[in-house]
């Protein structure tokens, strides 16, 4: 695997680090699974992406989401929900009920509304659950309870150890898994969950760690 970073010299301050590290010295083609489209789950040096607490001069090296395969569950459930009114109609449930004429339409509309909400929540939960590796920090942004968020970060210089796991049939087939990052920061461990290419992410972080400790 090609080196991602080559440290020139050990820098003294974070501001210098942000200016000098890492170098984008690897061609994008060498990361076969990397892409920059808006639904990418593994994006190296993403363009047009920023986050609220990003500092001036801080460059995003990696943007990660959970592997797209995790969306299959909510997509399948949404499709099944959309089929419920048709199924009820075909089974003659509507005609057997002593209900007003608009009852079937009411059930259909409500089912579509619930399906739409479920799909939106499923999509948002995946799309905005993002991990960043920047020139300064690793950042984990989580949204929960619909109107709350949690932004956790740790300086890359405080990364102490990284490890990764791939588990299960799907994890092996689609090459996704968890990356664990131990840090000396306030938050001792970060977990990047179900991300694609966990081996490459761990390698990049290891590279980072080695360069900072050199």
């Amino acid at each position: 695997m090609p080196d991602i970073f080559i440290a020139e010299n050990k820098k003294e301050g974070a501001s210098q680090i942000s200016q000098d590290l890492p170098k984008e010295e690897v061609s994008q083609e060498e990361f076969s699974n990397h892409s920059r489209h808006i639904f990418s789950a593994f994006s190296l040096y993403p363009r047009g992406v920023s986050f609220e607490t990003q500092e001036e001069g801080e460059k995003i090296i990696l943007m990660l989401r959970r592997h797209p395969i995790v969306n299959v569950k909510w997509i399948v459930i949404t499709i099944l929900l959309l089929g419920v009114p048709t199924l009820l109609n075909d089974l003659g449930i509507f005609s057997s009920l002593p209900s007003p004429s608009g009852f079937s339409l009411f059930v259909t509309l409500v089912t579509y509304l619930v399906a739409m909400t479920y799909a939106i929540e499923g999509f948002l939960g995946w799309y905005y659950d993002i991990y960043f590796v920047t020139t300064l920090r690793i950042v984990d942004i989580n949204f929960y309870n619909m109107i709350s968020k949690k932004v956790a970060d740790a300086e890359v210089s405080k990364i102490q150890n990284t490890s990764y796991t791939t588990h299960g049939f799907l994890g092996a087939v689609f090459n996704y898994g968890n990356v664990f990052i131990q840090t000396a920061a306030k938050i001792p461990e970060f977990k990047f969950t179900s991300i694609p290419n966990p081996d490459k992410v761990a390698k990049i972080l290891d590279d980072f760690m080695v360069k900072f400790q050199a």
Partner: protein
Amino acid sequence: MVNFFAAGGSEWLLIKAFSLVLLGIYLIYAMVIIRQVKLMTDTLHVGFEAPVKFLSYFHLVFAFLVFVATLVIL
């Protein structure tokens, strides 16, 4: 206690009222989703903000239309 179900069709009035209450709560939920999307798009800029915002407003409009439709058809 009033026995709605013995009142020849009044049970549907009860179902309609119950449905409208639930859909009213759902409308509030749809507004919370708009708030949620705003929070997300303010925190992260990933180039897909406009479609996501449109989706959340479309959802609210759809929820409102279902509420009105229930008022009319049930």
